């Protein structure tokens, strides 16, 4: 697609429920990243996928968080048993490092998650 697409744009869920956030990267971008942005904070790294390699999960804050990327394209971030502190904007970005290091990340518009 023309840009990075994320869905849903907004999600309100009850504490304890599971949620799935979807990211559709730019076609041909092999690298995909998930970040979390809380009010007044910077972007917190969560997980990174490169092609079909095993993901770098070192930024996931707890074992309630997991992510997968199917066919080297679409990615889903799953948060189980949501807590109020999970409320944030979840941003997905993709990049094409095969073209060289001068290409940055293209971010999606994010999913605003509110846990009530």
């Amino acid at each position: 697609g023309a840009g990075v697409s994320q869905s849903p744009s907004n999600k309100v869920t009850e504490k304890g429920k599971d949620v799935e956030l979807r990211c559709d990267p730019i076609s041909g971008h092999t690298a995909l990243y998930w970040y979390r942005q809380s009010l007044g904070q910077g972007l917190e790294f969560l997980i990174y996928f490169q092609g079909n390699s095993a993901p770098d999960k070192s930024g996931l804050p707890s074992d309630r968080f997991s992510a997968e990327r199917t066919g080297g394209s679409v990615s889903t971030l799953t948060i189980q048993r949501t807590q109020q502190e999970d409320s944030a904007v979840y941003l997905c970005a993709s990049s094409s490092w095969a073209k060289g290091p001068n290409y940055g990340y293209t971010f999606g518009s994010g999913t605003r998650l509110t846990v009530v």
Partner: protein
Amino acid sequence: QQPVQSPQAVILREGEDAVINCSSSKALYSVHWYRQKHGEAPVFLMILLKGGEQKGHDKISASFNEKKQQSSLYLTASQLSYSGTYFCGTDRYSGGGADGLTFGKGTHLIIQP
């Protein structure tokens, strides 16, 4: 380690210049700069690679001093459209950002007419 940005916020009149700094406590291979407008996605501005080369386009430029582990973003003759939050991102490892970036907390820039 999260890079430290300064200042946290700055208010300027249209046409004035601004400098935003980004400092890291670890060795850097690259620094990325992004701008985010309220309610929108961050947008890539530029990447600076190890070598201290200054880059820029239009009236926005940046420098990278890997010895001092610092980068600075320069906005000259600021325009209303420059308003937003500026983030610097530094390598998590040594891949130039390919394996993820650690972002600063951002600098809020407000340009007034």
